[in-house]
Each structure stands twice: as structure tokens, then as C-alpha cells.
């Protein structure tokens, strides 16, 4: 596959992964080896004093970048603080920016998001905002300097896939930065569909970590993302209401 470039950086995969929710820590490495993600999301949480778990070491081993998120932030201010802590902790200026209205729906708050994105860009961050599937808001996020846009396919962790393919296509058409499908992926066909709609990458977390076999699902999503990406570039046949034979119509035995 041709490679994905965000903010001038070449990424070696079009699958991004969150590992939160895995039932056992020893699954982290095989899941990452099966998924081979370009970016792996992490959250910033109060430390119990000990060193962070081996996640960062595994990322180094497999050559994946860390992408801190601001999950759980309910205001621009909280998100700014979390992003700055993440930059200091991880030495990366990339951030998956999340600002949600409430902890039940986990839906992005367009106003706080735009506010926080604008500030973080001026502070030198590379901002990838988790956003509504709203083409106009996507434009505004790009206007303030976001490096990508990450519309949700459906609510976080819902596994409902891409509820409004038309909206995702509209976001892709509206902006000239990579569009990453974030939230809602449930299984392989969802990921393939997202890529076919024009997304440049897909982020999955619960779909993998809460599957019965996380390693298997990691591998399935990797293949599906590649399949969808190639399919998009291969020019699919148009949908038609009428049938059309692939077998020759002439020369039939009568």
C-alpha cells in the first residue's frame, strides 16, 4: 500500500490501535504484532508511583508510535492540560484530541474541541481530533491547523460500524488532510467499508481488545484495512439495480 503521511510523517500502516480493555496484559504484545499499527493510543492517568507498564517498550520493539489521547476530558481546559502532560511524558507533540460532553454518550463536543485544537496547534502540537462526522466542522478543524480529522463511525465501543457512510464520504470530500475513522468499528467489514469510503486510516480499540480472540481480530482488522484501501484504489463496479451476466451470452448450447 502507498504510505500514509500525516503532518509530514510517513506512517507504515493504516491501522491505528488502542489497547485499553484487553483482559490480560500479556495480550498486548501479540495483539500489536498481529495488528502492526502505525500509532497506538494511550491515556494519561494518575500514576501509582511505579514506572508505567511495558507498553512503551513494546511499542519501541515493534516500531509503532505512541499517540496520547485526551480521553475523559470534558472541557477544552482539561484537554489542554492533558495534552501538555502527555507531551512531557512521552516526548511527542502528537495528540488524539478528545473533548466529550458527558461520560455516558462519549460524544465529541464541537465547540470545546475546536477551541482546544486551535490552542494546541499554536503550541506546536500535531492535533488529530476525534470529531462528529460533520463535514463543515471538519473544515473548521483543518482551518485551525489540525493534521487529520477523526470522525466517529458510531459511538465509542458500540461496535455499530459506520452508521452514516454518506457523512463519512462527505467529510473525506470536504478536507484535504487524512480522514481517520475513529470509534464504532465492530469487525473487519466495518474497517474495510471505512477505507472504501475514502478514509486514510482506521482506529480501533474495543473491537480488538474486547473480542473473544483479540489477536485474531487484530489480524482481521489489519487485513480488512488493507483490503478496503486497495479496493478503493481499484475502482469498484457501479451499483446497478439490474443484473448483468459475467458469463458470455452468446454461443450457448440450445
Amino acid at each position, binding site marked *: 500500500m502507498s504510505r500514509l503521511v500525516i503532518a509530514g510523517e510517513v506512517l507504515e500502516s493504516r491501522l491505528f490501535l488502542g489497547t485499553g480493555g484487553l483482559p490480560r496484559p500479556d495480550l498486548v504484545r501479540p495483539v500489536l504484532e498481529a495488528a502492526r499499527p502505525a500509532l497506538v493510543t*494511550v*491515556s*494519561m492517568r494518575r500514576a501509582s508511583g511505579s514506572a508505567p507498564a511495558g*507498553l512503551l517498550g513494546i511499542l519501541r520493539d515493534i516500531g509503532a508510535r*505512541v499517540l496520547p*489521547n485526551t480521553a475523559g476530558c470534558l472541557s477544552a481546559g482539561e484537554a489542554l492540560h492533558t495534552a501538555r*502532560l502527555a507531551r512531557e*511524558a*512521552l516526548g511527542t507533540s502528537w495528540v488524539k484530541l478528545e473533548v466529550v460532553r458527558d461520560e455516558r454518550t462519549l460524544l465529541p463536543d464541537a465547540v470545546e474541541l475546536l477551541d482546544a485544537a486551535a490552542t494546541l496547534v499554536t503550541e506546536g502540537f500535531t492535533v488529530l481530533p476525534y470529531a462528529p462526522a460533520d463535514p463543515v466542522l471538519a473544515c473548521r478543524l483543518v482551518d485551525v491547523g489540525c493534521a487529520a480529522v477523526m470522525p466517529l463511525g458510531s459511538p465509542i465501543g458500540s461496535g455499530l460500524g459506520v452508521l452514516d457512510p454518506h457523512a463519512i464520504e462527505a467529510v473525506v470530500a470536504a478536507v484535504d488532510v487524512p480522514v481517520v475513522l475513529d470509534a464504532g468499528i465492530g469487525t473487519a467489514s466495518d474497517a474495510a467499508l471505512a477505507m472504501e469510503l475514502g478514509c486514510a486510516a482506521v482506529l480501533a*480499540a474495543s473491537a480488538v481488545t474486547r473480542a473473544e480472540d483479540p489477536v485474531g481480530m487484530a489480524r482481521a482488522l489489519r487485513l480488512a484495512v488493507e483490503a478496503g484501501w486497495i479496493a478503493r484504489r481499484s475502482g469498484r463496479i457501479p451499483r446497478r439495480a439490474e443484473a448483468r451476466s459475467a458469463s458470455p451470452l452468446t454461443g450457448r448450447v440450445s
Partner: protein
Amino acid sequence: MRITLNGADVECDAPTITLLLGDVPIGCAVAVNHEVVPRSVHHTHPVNDGDTVEVVAAVAGG
């Protein structure tokens, strides 16, 4: 003196972050009174009575 460390009231007498927390490993960061304190100045940055100190680490996320 008393500080708030990750939301808990704590009695301490460490005059600097490094003396309070030791070497903060990669993947962690410290904020005092809601300002991030770069790792490079942990050994000099004072801890004062009434400070709010946060130590955070990267954990598996989504």
C-alpha cells in the same frame, strides 16, 4: 508541609520534585498547580506548602 498529591492530602518535607518523587520514568509527567513541570527541572523545582502535585503516566487507552 501539606500538599495535594494526585488528589490526596499528603504530609511531606521534600523541597523539590525530585526529592518528592524520585526520578520520574519515561512515560510519566508531573504538574504542579496545574502547570506541567519539565523533567529537566524536577531537581530544582520547589515544592511548597499547599501545592497541588499531579503525577501521571501513559496507560493503555482507546
